[in-house]
């Protein structure tokens, strides 16, 4: 007789990660105070974004403050609104002010010119007084530019390609405001002139340089799609604001002498015509003088001021971006989130619930992991919803109040929103780990605020290298996700925090914060396994 042993029935498995997640989520959502905490975080984030942007007014005042008012009071005769900022082919803010001598040209052609001298003047007037040619000293900006330019239109912000000699940066091939390639190094003088050549073949433009006009080297080439048959070609000179002496910038002017100017091929117009592009009080880019042009025989002398490059921030435009709008609201929201994340674990220790939790799930590392996933998801969603409301609201208010908000592509805006939500989530996980290490809410909240919020506050009051290192090495590096201002190698500018530039790129900054969270989580896992609960 054989006995069939009773078959062991397989019940549902209870050691999976999903039930653990569900139990942690249940714990979170059934504590009313924590859910209210999330709402408070979101409401405060939006409310403070509203407060800070609604109170920002931009305008220009022609008169002094009314008598009896303090020195910081607004002046009289004020008009709201910011000066005109051109928009480049990619939708970005650009500077586009220069002296141009051009003629229309139809068809494929080669334009050649020799630059025999490039000199400059620097304004000596204080930043708040309009610059004048009467108050200058000799001084050539490093990025003063003189060369050959091709553009379909002289409207500011239109597409272009140019080959140029510069103050100290050598010969350059640049197009569409952002792209820059170096040619021959060294500066221009009568003894060492620079020959420049630009050829057009269909949509393709190519830049060459030479020291003798016989042996030519190609610097770079580009396709400007949709270039019309007839374009403006000519010589240009411009000279940007320098920031060597002051943070607010000093306008400069450059003067260049060209000879050996020739146009081969194509159907050229009959006469050269001088044009000053982007000058005047309605333009945002500060210029020195109004630009001028003289011709004697085959020799052209042009004086120009301005820049043809990416638009950069403070001193010229302010630093409002889709990211900077969020800054204060995000800090306030983070503060609340630190409290909620700390309580999510320390409350279990205080009430003794942690012993029940660990009895139910003896694998303590998994408990911590489940808690981290729940708090990260909750924080990410709270942060995400907050910024989804705050960014458009802030942008609308700033535009309404006449401030200039740097245009940002949809990709950048999404990156700022996702990055900010991730910043909140990573901070919440790190504070959860801190709470698990310290096991007391007082220590966890105080340490959480001191480690993850205070470095930003302290850092924003420092200057120089201390500030740079603080935003590279401390958790404040994570705020780099808010960075949205364009940074251009061919624009000499103080790219400092005060001007809205973080020392790290957005994802690198977030990675620094993530490293802190990972270390905290590692220590917490180690300790939670080692210690008695």
């Amino acid at each position, binding site marked *: 007789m054989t006995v069939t042993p009773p078959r062991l029935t397989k019940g549902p498995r209870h050691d999976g990660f999903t039930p653990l997640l569900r139990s942690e989520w249940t714990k979170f959502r059934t504590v009313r105070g924590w859910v209210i905490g999330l709402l408070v975080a979101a409401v405060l984030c939006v409310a403070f974004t509203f407060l800070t942007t609604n109170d920002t007014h931009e305008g220009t005042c022609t008169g002094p403050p009314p008598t009896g008012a303090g020195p910081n009071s607004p002046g009289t005769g004020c008009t709201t609104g910011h000066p005109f900022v051109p928009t480049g082919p990619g939708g970005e803010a650009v500077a586009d002010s220069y002296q141009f001598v051009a003629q229309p040209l139809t068809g494929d052609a080669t334009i050649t010119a020799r630059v025999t001298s490039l000199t400059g003047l620097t304004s000596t007037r204080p930043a708040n007084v309009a610059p004048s040619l009467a108050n200058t000293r000799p001084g050539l900006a490093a990025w003063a530019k003189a060369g050959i330019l091709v553009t379909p239109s002289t409207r500011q912000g239109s597409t272009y390609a140019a080959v140029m000699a510069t103050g100290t940066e050598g010969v350059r091939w640049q197009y569409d405001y952002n792209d820059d390639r170096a040619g021959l190094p060294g500066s221009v003088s009568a003894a060492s002139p620079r020959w420049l050549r630009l050829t057009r073949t269909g949509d393709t433009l190519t830049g060459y340089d030479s020291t003798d006009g016989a042996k030519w080297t190609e610097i770079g080439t580009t396709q400007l799609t949709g270039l019309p048959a007839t374009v403006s070609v000519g010589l240009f000179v411009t000279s940007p604001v320098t920031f060597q002496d002051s943070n607010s910038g000093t306008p400069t002017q450059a003067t260049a002498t060209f000879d050996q100017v020739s146009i081969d091929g194509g159907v050229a117009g009959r006469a050269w015509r001088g044009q000053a592009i982007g000058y005047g009080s309605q333009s945002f880019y500060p210029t020195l003088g109004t630009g001028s042009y003289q011709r004697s025989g085959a020799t052209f002398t042009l004086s120009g001021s301005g820049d043809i490059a990416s638009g950069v921030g403070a001193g010229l435009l302010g630093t409002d971006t889709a990211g900077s709008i969020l800054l204060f609201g995000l800090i306030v929201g983070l503060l609340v989130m630190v409290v909620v994340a700390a309580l999510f674990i320390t409350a279990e220790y205080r009430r003794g619930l942690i012993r029940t939790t660990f009895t139910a799930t003896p694998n303590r590392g998994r408990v911590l992991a489940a808690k981290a996933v729940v708090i990260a998801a909750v924080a990410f969603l709270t942060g995400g919803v907050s910024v989804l409301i705050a960014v458009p609201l802030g942008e609308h208010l700033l535009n309404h109040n006449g401030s200039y908000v740097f245009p940002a592509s949809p990709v950048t805006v999404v990156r700022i929103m996702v990055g900010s939500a991730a910043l909140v989530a990573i901070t919440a996980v790190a504070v959860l780990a801190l709470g698990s290490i310290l096991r007391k809410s*007082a220590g966890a909240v105080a340490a959480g605020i001191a480690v993850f919020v205070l470095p930003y506050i302290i850092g924003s009051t420092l200057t120089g290298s201390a500030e740079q290192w603080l935003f590279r090495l401390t958790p404040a590096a994570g705020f780099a996700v808010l960075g949205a201002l364009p940074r251009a190698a061919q624009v000499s500018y103080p790219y400092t925090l005060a001007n809205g530039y973080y020392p790290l790129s957005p994802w690198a900054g977030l990675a620094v914060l993530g490293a802190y969270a990972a270390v905290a989580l590692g220590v917490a896992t180690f300790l939670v396994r080692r210690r008695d609960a």
Partner: protein
Amino acid sequence: MSDALRAEWTKLRTVASTGWLLTGAVVLTVGVSAAVAAATHVTSGQGQDSTKLSLTGIYLGQTVLAVLAVLTITEEYGTGMIRSTLTAIPRRIVLLAAKAATMAGLALVAGVLAVAGCLLAGRLWLPAAGLNPAHGYALVSISQGPTLRAALGSVFYLVLIALLGLGVATTIRDTAISIGAVLGLLYLPPILAQAVADPMRHHLLQVAPMTAGLAIQATTDLGSQPLAPWAGLGVLAAWTVASLVLGGVLLRLRDA
């Protein structure tokens, strides 16, 4: 009242964290001040305030005292100890007064030590940083009226911050939320002030507890401060009194 005082003193004295937090407050304050003094490097002329620079550490050290003050009451709520305490001392205002007096005493001692340490650090390291008589800066010394005022005022500032923490915590009763609220109240207005335009910015700095209270530290260029030194400390005192009154009223009205 003296029984209540003795009870509060015993409670604070016999918890290990009190000693650690007080030591931490002094060490952190002096440490930050010394670090700032050592990292300072002045090359040109005027514009620096040696005394204020020496006292930078208070900016961070105050958090520790605020945390200690919060804990003196929220821990009682957290552990249920408050019910025993109120059974022993049924007059709740007397209890709060005893807690405030004990806390003020401890904060005073920690404050005197911290401020003395800060000024010593400033005296020792700032001359090497360029803030010396050769550059037109007097050495940090409490024999000068403004420096004495800044030193005494900073001690009072720390006492008032601790009492503000106690008042807020008596109102909120939860450790984590109280600490978040106190630190938010201290640190958020200065950042908000960076973001808003001038009439509002100026008023914000005048009414916020930390920026108004720290006006007491300025010894030069008083015009650039949001408020006159003692008026600033008065604003902080008003915050403290308001928080203690609110906490006291709620302590009387609510069940523990």
